[in-house]
C-alpha cells in the first residue's frame, strides 16, 4: 500500500520480466508460483519479483499468444493454472534474448570494465 516503498524499489523493466518468464517456461509448463520461485532462484535473488506483479505480465503474454494457460494439478495435488510456451513464444524468446544480450554487451562497454564487472 505504501507508495513510498514502491518507488524506492527497483522496478523491473517490462521487457525484462517478459523475457524471464519466457525463459523459465523453456524447461516445461509451470504454474505462477513456480515461475516466481524459478526467477528468484535463477537470478540468485538479485531480481526481486513481487509475486503479485507476475500475474499482469502472464496475462499480457497470454493475450499476445506467447504462452498458453490451462488449469491442472500441482505436484502436491493443488489446483493451479499452468503456463506453457507456445511456438510464437519461443520465437519471441529467441529474438528478445539476442536483443538483450546485445543491449547488455553495449551497456557493459559504455560503463567500462570496472562498472561492468560489478
Amino acid at each position, binding site marked *: 500500500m505504501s507508495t513510498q516503498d514502491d518507488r524506492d524499489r527497483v*522496478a523491473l523493466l517490462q521487457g525484462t520480466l517478459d523475457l524471464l518468464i519466457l525463459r523459465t517456461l523453456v524447461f516445461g509448463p509451470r*504454474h505462477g*508460483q513456480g515461475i516466481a520461485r524459478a526467477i528468484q532462484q535463477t537470478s540468485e535473488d538479485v531480481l526481486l519479483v513481487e509475486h*503479485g506483479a507476475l*500475474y499482469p505480465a502472464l496475462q499480457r503474454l497470454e493475450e499476445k499468444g506467447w504462452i498458453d494457460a490451462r488449469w491442472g494439478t500441482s505436484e*502436491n495435488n*493443488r489446483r*493451479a*493454472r499452468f503456463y506453457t510456451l507456445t511456438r510464437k513464444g519461443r520465437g519471441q524468446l529467441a529474438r528478445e534474448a539476442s536483443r538483450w544480450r546485445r543491449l547488455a554487451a553495449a551497456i557493459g562497454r559504455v560503463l567500462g570494465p570496472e562498472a561492468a564487472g560489478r
Partner: protein
Amino acid sequence: MFRRRRPPADFAAEIEAHLQLEVDRLREAGLSREEAEAAARRAFGNVTAAQERFYEAGRWLFGDRLRQDVGFALRLLARSPILTAAVVGTLALGIGVTSAVFSLVHAVVLRPLDYERPHELVQLYESGLRGGGEADWVSFPNFQDWRREGRVFEDVAAYRYALVTLTGPEGAESMLGLETTDRLFAVLGVPPLLGRTFHAGEDRPGREGAAVISHSLWRRRFGSDPGVAGRAVNIDGRSCTVVGVMPASFRFPNNVPLDQVVSVDAWITLRPSPDLEERGSHNFWAVARLRAGTGLDEARAALAPIAERLARQHPDTNADMGVTVARLQDYVAGSARPALLLLLGAVALVLLLTCANVANLLLSRAESRRREMAVRQALGASRGRLVRQTLTESLVLALAGAVLGLALAHLGTRLVVRLGPAAIPRLQQTAVDAPVLLFTAAVTVGVGILFGLAPALVGLGSSLQAAFREAPSRASAGGRRFVRQLLVAGQVALAVMLLIGAGLLVRSFAQVAGLDPGFRAPRVLTALVNLSPSRYGDPARQVAFFEEALRGIRELPGVLSAAVANSIPLTGINDQGGFAVEGRPDPPPGEDGPFANRPRVSAGYFDTMGIRLLDGRLFDERDRPGSPLVVIVSDLAARTYWPGVDPIGRRVAVDWAEGQAVWREIVGVVRGTRHFGLEAPPKAEIYLPHAQAPSPFMTLVVRVEGDPAGLVRGIRARIAGLDPEQAVFGFQTMDELLSNAGARRRFPMALVTAFAALALLLAAIGVYGVMAHMVVQRRREIGVRLALGARPDDVVALVLRNGVRLTLAGTAAGLAGAVALSRTLSGLLFGVSAMDPATYAGVAAVLLAVAGFAAYLPSRGAARVDPLTVLREE
C-alpha cells in the same frame, strides 16, 4: 482490471492457488501455518497496487499510454451509451455551430483578399463630404492631387462603374463595366490570364480605348478564343481594343450593391467626361497600394497636409475635407463586419453553455465513479494519472463531438452559401477549409479540457472513506453541488445574454420591417436598359425609344402598368445633386444648399410603383419636351424646403443652361420613398418627367397581375423587336430588392435568435438536470419530511424554491452581463435602445417561466416520494 477474455473469478482463483502453493512450500521449509500465510501474502504484495505500478513503470512510450487511456475511455463511454450520446450530441451542436460561424467570419472578414500582398492595399476616400452624407467617394481632381503628391503610395488608381454596351457581329450586349485609370491592375498585382493589362498612360485623353475583359465574357462572347487579345470591339460607339482576359477567380471591386445584380465584365480605360475636371463631383472610388512597410497611420499622416492644402486652395469644394485611409480588407467586409463579429461572440456564448452542460452531465457521472476513483487512488494510482485519464475521456468525447460537428458545420456553410444574403461580400466563399479545421481542432482541445476539468477535480477530492461511506459527507457533497449550481446559474446567465441580444435584434428587425418604404413592392418587375450612345445620342430618340418600348410592354398579357425611371429605390442607382429653390438665396460658401435625389421618370411611374400622390397632379401626356417644365417633389422635400407653405406652383432648378437656372414648376407632392435603404434616413426627392429630362440609362418597372418572373421573356422580346442590338438585363423584382435590403439585418438576427433558442433549451436542461439530481440526493430528507407530516405541496415548494433561487441568480448575472455588452450591440440596433426595458423584462420573465417549469418537473417526482420505501432503503 482484467477485463478482457478472462472472468475476474478465474483470476481470483489463480491468486488463491498461488498463495496456497506458497504456503505449502513455506510450511515444508518449517514455518507455522500462520507464519507461512503471512509470508506468502507479503511476498505477493498488493495485487492491484502492483499492477498500477507495473503499468506506470513499464510503459515508456507516450503512445502506449495514450492508447491505453483512449481504449479505457472508449470502453467506459460505451458502457453508458445514453449519456455518451447526450454529451457527444451536445458537443457536436456546440462545436458545429461555432465552426460554421467561424468559417463565415473567416470567409468574409478574416480571409486575405485574393490580390497580391493584400495587407498593403487601402481604399482612399474623402471624409467630411457634405450633402451626400457618409460616402466613400472622391472627385477626380482630388484623386489626381493625392496621386501626384502622395509619397506613401506605390501605386494608386481611381475607378467608377459604367454600364457599357458592346456591339459587334456577335450582337449587342449590355454589361457592367468599370472605368479606371491605367494603374488599377498594377495596384492589385493580379496578372491577366491572357494578353496584358493597361500600359502606363493608356488612360490619357486622345489614346484609343483599351479593355480588359472578364473570364466569363471571354467564354460567353468570344468562345474562349485564345487570340482575343488585340481584337477591336465597339464599346458604347467608341472603338476599343481588347488587350487582355482576367482569370475566372478575379473580382474587382466586390463590395458594391450593383455587384449583386451583375458582376464586372469589362475594365476599360477612363473615357473623356466633364466631371473629370470638376472638383465638386464626387464620382470616383480610389484604391492604392502603400509602399512596403508603410503603416496606415503613416499613410494618414502623409495625406493630411495634402488635404489641408486642397481645402485652403479650393474652399468652395474642399472645405473641412480630409482623406480617409482604410484597409481594403476592412473596407470590403464593410458593414457586414460588426454583425459577423457579433455572431462570433454569440456562438462563443453558446459554446460556453455547451461546455457547462456537458460538464454537468459528466459531473453526475463523476459522482457515481467516485468510489472507483478513490479505490484507484488508494491503490497507488497517481493523481496526475487519474486526471489524465479523465481528461482523455473528455478529449475523446470532444473529438467525437468535433467530427460530428464538422459535418454539421459543412451542412451549415452550404446552407449559408445558398440562403445567405448576396449583400454580404465574399459570403459565397464560405467553406470548411484548412483554417476552419485548425480552428475547430483548437476549439475541440480547449472545450475538452474546459468541460473535463471539473469532473476530474471532483473525482480526486474524495478520500476512500468518504467515498465508501453510505451517505456522502456533507462538506464534499455540498462543494460539488455548489459547483453544479454555479455551472447552471452560469448557463442561465449566458442564455439571458443571448436572449436579450436576440430580442433586441428581433425588435430592431420588426421596426425596420414595419417601416413604410413609400412604395408597394409586390408584383413589380424591374430590368435595366442602357441605350447605346452611338445610336441614341439624341435625347429625342431616347424618349421615343422608351415610350415605344413601354407601349409594347403594356400590351403583354398580365401587365397592369409599366414605366421607366433612371433611379429607383434600393438599387444603389441614384441621381443625387444640389438644386436651387426660387426666391431662396444661395447658401454661403462652405454650407449645404438644397440637396436631393432627382429621379427622371416616365408618366405612370408613380402608379406602377404605388407611390401615393398627396397633392397636385402626377405627370401625364401634357408634360412634353416643348411644354412648360414641371417637377413633382416628395413630402419630405416639401416640408424641408417649403415649410408651412404650399409648394405647388413654386419653382426649382436642377440644371443650368448657359449659366441660367432652368426653372421648373412644382405640380404635385408625393409620398417620399426610402430610396437609399430601409434604415438609411430618407432624403428629399424631386421627380422630373423623362420626356423633359431624357436619359439613356433607365430602369424598367412593370406591375404585373401574376408571377413577375413569367414576363421576363416577353419583355426581352419586345425590346429586341424594337432594336435587336439593344440589350435588357439585370431582371429583379422589387420584392427581391426589398428582401436584399433587409437581408443584412435578417441574417444575423435569424442566427442569433436560433442560438438564443438553443441556449434557452440548454439552460432549461441544465436546471432540470441539477434539480432532478438534487431530488435524488435528498430523497431521504424528503422522505423524512413527508413522514413527519410535510404535505407534497411543501416538498414541491422546497425544490421549486431551490430552482428559482438558482435561476434568479443566473438571470441577475445575465442581465448585468447584457448591460455590460449593450454598447457593442447598439451599433446593430434600429429604433430600439440597447437597454430596452421591455426586452430585458420580457427575457427575464421567459427565463423564469422556462426554468421554473424545468425545476417543477423534478419537484413533482419529489412529492411522489414514498416515505416508507425511502426509509426502508436505509
